[in-house]
Structures are given as structure tokens and as C-alpha cells.
């Protein structure tokens, strides 16, 4: 029993830390790209400002509008958060440093990531606000549409690795000597990253939030700690999807040429570095791109990404059988 608590505590802490690191990266990256100082005043040249941010939101009044569906409205942020944290359970930091090395790790991750959709949709629906409703519906449409290319992109990796366990996938890449992104899954990787960006609801796929259109989308009516949970979940989601992408495509906790016997020591560092590099790409994209339109987003998913990922699976399967 204690082990379960330790594991859950570790998960929550790790995910939270990841989210905080990504928040700093996003905000500092934004100020760097926008030629402005950015946060400066909270300790260490502004680098610990997320703590102040969290304290601020915790202090704020948690406003619940009168017309909302109270229980649903209150619990919606929890769904989103839980799905993010649970997702982290299967990500291996090293062969042994993994909360749950499931046989069907990939399957679990993709299933859990869909749970967030429910949270977003219920948040939009229960808010009794038309902007929230539209944001929630947009989010639902988007998350469902991009779940498919996400899964299909992973199928290529699964075929190549012949396992669904994330540790197994990394071990396979060590065995191959090169990560899958070099070893034939470059298309899959690109599709995965695009779909993951849409799953995170980041620019250019941030229509569910769409500040200039829907004020704040499904989060419009939230304030105080509940808003904070949404806010942090966004970055957690970003962190974890980047970690999964590094695990699946970039060789996870291992870098070629480093001795495998020391992997328990350098594993977490390597994984975090890879995650941070992917995160930085997402930050750069966010602060330099406009937003797609809802119909263009759906077109991209159904007309380009899904056929492309199907072709990717086909090619991978042929290669696998043929060679």
C-alpha cells in the first residue's frame, strides 16, 4: 500500500515539476522571441515566477457562477489533471525508474489521454456560457479528430518494436543502435508531433481556447485554483506528450554510444533533455504561428494526417515483413 502512495506522490511531483519547467520555458521563450524582458522580479532573474503565479491563483476567490451545473463544473478540472498525471505512469526514465511498466503501455497511454477530453467537454458544457460551450465542443471535435493520427502514428512504432511496453520500445531502440526517428519512423514522428500539438491545444491548434474569438474557451468561467489546475494541466500535458514522443521516437532514456550499464544514472537526464528540446520546438511554434480555422483543422486531421499515417503503417508493415 505504501508503495502505491509513494508512486502516486512521485508521479504528481514529477509531473508538476515538469509543468513548472515548461511554464518557465514557455514564458521566457515568449519574451525572448518578442524582444521584451519577460518576468524579471521573482527571484533568480524571474526564473521562479511560476511559484508566485501558483500562490496568486491559490489565494484568489474561486468564483462559481450561479447558473452553472455545480458538481460537474467543480470536478471538470480534476479529470483533466488526473488524465495528465496518470499518463506519466508509463513513461520510463530508466529501465527501472518507471512507475508501471505495463505490457500494453502504449495502449494505456493513449486511452488515458482521451480522458482529458471528457474534462474539457464537461467544463465547457457545465459553465452555462456560450463561449465555454463552443470552446468545449471545439475541443471535443479536435481531440477526437487528432486522437486517430496520434494512435496510428504510434502503431508504426509498435510494429517496428514488436511490443507495446514503453520500456520494451526503448530497449528495442537500444538494440537497433539508432532511435526510431532515424530508423524509419520520421513520418510517424512528424504526424505524432502535429497531432500532439493539437491534443495539447497549443497554437496553431488552440481554437478551443482561441482567446481572440472565444475569450478563453472552455476556461472562461473558471477562476482561482480551478483555473490554475487547467493552466498547469496544459503544461503537464505538454511535458508528458513530449516525454512520450522522446520515448517512442527519440530513443527515450538512452543515447547511442553511452554505456548501457550506466543507464540508471544518466537515463532521467537524457530523457528530460530530449523532452526539453521537443518542448522548445513547441514554444517556438506557439509564438510564431497564427491559429488555424476550425474547418481547416478538421481537414488537416482527416484528409492529410490520417491517410499519411495509414500509409506509414502500411510501409512499416511491408518493411517489417519483407526484411
Amino acid at each position, binding site marked *: 500500500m505504501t508503495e502505491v502512495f509513494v508512486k502516486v506522490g512521485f508521479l504528481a511531483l514529477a509531473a508538476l515539476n515538469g509543468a513548472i519547467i515548461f511554464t518557465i520555458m514557455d514564458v521566457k521563450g*515568449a519574451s525572448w522571441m518578442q524582444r521584451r524582458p519577460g518576468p524579471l522580479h521573482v527571484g533568480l532573474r524571474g526564473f521562479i515566477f511560476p511559484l508566485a503565479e501558483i500562490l496568486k491563483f491559490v489565494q484568489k476567490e474561486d468564483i462559481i457562477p450561479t447558473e452553472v451545473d455545480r458538481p460537474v463544473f467543480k470536478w471538470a478540472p480534476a479529470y483533466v489533471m488526473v488524465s495528465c498525471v496518470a499518463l506519466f505512469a508509463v513513461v520510463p526514465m530508466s529501465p527501472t525508474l518507471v512507475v508501471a511498466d505495463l505490457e500494453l503501455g502504449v495502449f494505456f497511454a493513449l486511452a488515458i489521454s482521451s480522458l482529458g477530453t471528457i474534462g474539457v467537454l464537461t467544463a465547457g458544457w457545465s459553465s452555462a456560457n456560450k463561449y465555454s460551450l*463552443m470552446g468545449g465542443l471545439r475541443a471535443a471535435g479536435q481531440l477526437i479528430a487528432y486522437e486517430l493520427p496520434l494512435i496510428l502514428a504510434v502503431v508504426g512504432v509498435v510494429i517496428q518494436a514488436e511490443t507495446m511496453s514503453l520500456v520494451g520500445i526503448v530497449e528495442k531502440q537500444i538494440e537497433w543502435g539508432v532511435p526510431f526517428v532515424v530508423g524509419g519512423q520520421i513520418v510517424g514522428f512528424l504526424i505524432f508531433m502535429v497531432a500532439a500539438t493539437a491534443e495539447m491545444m497549443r497554437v496553431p491548434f488552440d*481554437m478551443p481556447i482561441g482567446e*481572440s474569438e472565444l475569450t478563453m474557451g472552455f476556461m472562461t468561467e473558471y477562476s482561482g485554483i480551478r483555473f490554475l489546475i487547467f493552466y498547469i494541466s496544459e503544461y503537464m500535458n505538454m511535458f508528458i506528450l513530449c516525454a512520450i514522443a522522446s520515448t517512442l521516437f527519440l530513443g527515450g532514456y538512452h543515447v547511442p554510444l553511452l554505456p548501457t550499464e550506466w543507464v540508471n544514472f544518466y537515463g532521467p537526464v537524457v530523457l528530460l533533455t530530449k523532452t526539453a528540446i521537443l518542448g522548445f520546438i513547441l514554444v517556438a511554434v506557439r509564438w510564431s*504561428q497564427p491559429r*488555424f480555422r476550425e474547418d481547416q483543422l478538421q481537414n488537416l486531421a482527416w484528409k492529410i494526417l490520417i491517410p499519411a499515417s495509414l500509409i506509414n503503417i502500411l510501409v512499416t508493415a511491408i518493411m517489417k515483413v519483407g526484411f
Partner: protein
Amino acid sequence: MVNTLDPQNFNNFSEASVSVEIETEDMTLNIGPQHPSTHGVLRLVAKVDGEKVHDVKPVLGYMHRGYEKLAEVRSYPQITTLVNRIDWVAGFSNEIPFIAGAERLMEIEVPERAKHIRLILNEMARISSHFVFNGAYALEVGALTPIFYAMEDRERVLDLIESVTGGRFHPNFNRIGGVKPAAGSGPTTKKDIQDLPAGFYRDTKVAMQKVIEAADQFQNLIGGNEVFKKRTKNVGILSAETAEAFGVSGPILRASGVKSDLRTQMDYLPYDQFEYDIPIGENGDCYDRWDVRVKEMIESAKIVLQAIDSMPSGPLQAKVPKVIKVPKGRTYVRAENPKGEMGYYIVSDGGLGPYRLKVRTASFSNLSILPLLLEGALLPDLIAIMGSLDFVLGDVDR
């Protein structure tokens, strides 16, 4: 089964539509007056069917300050302070046609130097207004960074305007018969008038060079962006005929392919002495409206650079009576504002103030096209179209 979507309005969406009609109910969506992208306090009441918008009703008046009524109880010099608050993004441009109208009725010949200074500041106001548009428009289609670059570049121009007039947004710099001595200048005795602050020419040249660079950068980074093109091309197409019937003017009219620029007709400012192009668009869509404005910034910077080089010397003020009384008569003076045709119809009865002052603002007529353009658009297009009209609520409501 009837396909309820009009394919002409949105090509992409209609491809994805299915021919099954679902029983849907229209939702009335209230946008504004407090909404991130309504430029102040515009309120739209729209019927939405999912993402599709129809039957948009703009609700105005949140910024109505009754300038036409106030003008009736003020004297002519007092009205100048009033009018540069109409379109606060380009405050200086609002003064020009009013002052020109009063001067025209009083038959005052303005000194050339004053005219040149007016022209330079007018073009600077245009540049700063287009910078605001550029940043804000990118923000509206979802790009968060350009506004910081636009604001930074605009700041240089505003600094120049401030160094001459003493005001960043509301210069109140024009006087009937000329311009006021500049803020940064020394003691204004009759013999020793320094009308422009020291270093103005040098700073202006640098700043205008930066404006041209910034406009190029905008064309590359925003205009060349695929997502931006996807969002704005073939969205909100406005034909030239409709635009004319609605009195839509300025960059929006030019984006629809009409080569009409009132600067060629403003005989009270020496625009005919300078060379500049009038950029026009082809399709009249949001992208063209954006593109025309960016190109206009470059042209304006060129005009300023030429005007700096050919600045005549001489007095700043014509001889005017101490008490300004405008002779009986009426005139309509129009000018090419950053937003379009701005004009004042002054009806004078020979008194200290006008008997009636009709303010014709560009944004008012430009905004009246909005319900037509938004018919059948998608909600994200609503924002893109609304932003491309580049209105200021003070200019609409007056």
C-alpha cells in the same frame, strides 16, 4: 436533401459537409462590448448555427460622445482639441480636414513650411495607425508575437510626433493658419522661432528607414506565413461596387481594386510635390486589405523622407485675426485618413463656432459593411473580417 451551406462563402467547409439535415436551433451569441477583439466597445449580436454566423447586428453607441453637438457650443480653436480624439490611433489626421475647412472658409493661405510639417505628421500618424493594425490583426488571427514588434516600431514614430507636438496621441498641434511652434523648440520670440526640435530631420530619416525595414519584415513573416494566408485569403471578399455604395473608403476600397486615394485631391497639403504609389489589391479579401496597409506604410515613409529633403523655410503661421470668426458659408473638406475618407461639413453662420458641424468618419461607413460581409461566415472568420476593417470605435461613434 438540401445542402444548406453556400459553397461560395467557404470553399473548404462545404466540401466536408454531408447532405443530411440535422434539426438544429440557432443560438444568439452576444459578442462584446467587452470582448478581446472588438477594438473597444463594439457589440455584435449574431445568430450562430454551430460555427456558422448569420444575421449579425452591430450595436453601437457605447463610445458616443456627441461631438457634433459639442461642436455647436465651442469656438473653432476649441474644436481642434475635440476632433483629434475622434480616431485616437491617428489623432493628428483628424485635425487636418477640419482646420483646412476653416481656413478655406476664411480664405487663409497657409505658409508652405506649415503645410509640409502638417504633411509629415499626417503621414507619421498613418504609419503609426497601420502599425497598430498590423499588430492587432495578427493577434486576432492568433499570432501573438507581431504586436510586440509593431508596438516597438510604432514607438519610434510616436516619439517623433511627440518631439514636435508634445503629444503622443492627441497632438492638438494645428492652428488655423498654420501650426503651433514645436514643443521642443526654444523661446518663441518673434525673431527666433525654432519650429522643429533639434535633430528632427536626422531622427526622422533613421525612423523612416526602420519603418520600411519593419514593413518588409511584416510582409515576410506574416504575409509569407502559410497559416496566415489560409486564414485570410478568400475570406470576406468585398466587391468594388458594394464598397462604393456603402461609402467604404480608404485601404479597404483600394484592396477591392479601386485606385482611389484622396491624397491626390487634398489640395491643401502639398502631396502633388511627392512621388508615391497607391497600392491596390486584387480580390478584396482580408489578405489584400492587410497587404495594402503594409505597402502603404512603405509609401508613407517614402513621402516623409522626400518631404524632409524638400522642406521649405519660412513662417509657420499665416496672419490671422486674434478672434477667429469664420465667414458665413459652408464647405465639405475631406481627407485621406489612415482609415479612409474623413471629412467635415462646416456650416458657418459667421459666428465664433460653427452652426452645424457634420463629422464624416471613415470607420462609420466602413463598419456598416460588416453585417453584409459576415453573412454565412464562420466564427473565426468573423474575427478575421472584423479585424481587417480596421475600425476604431471612437471613429465610428464620434
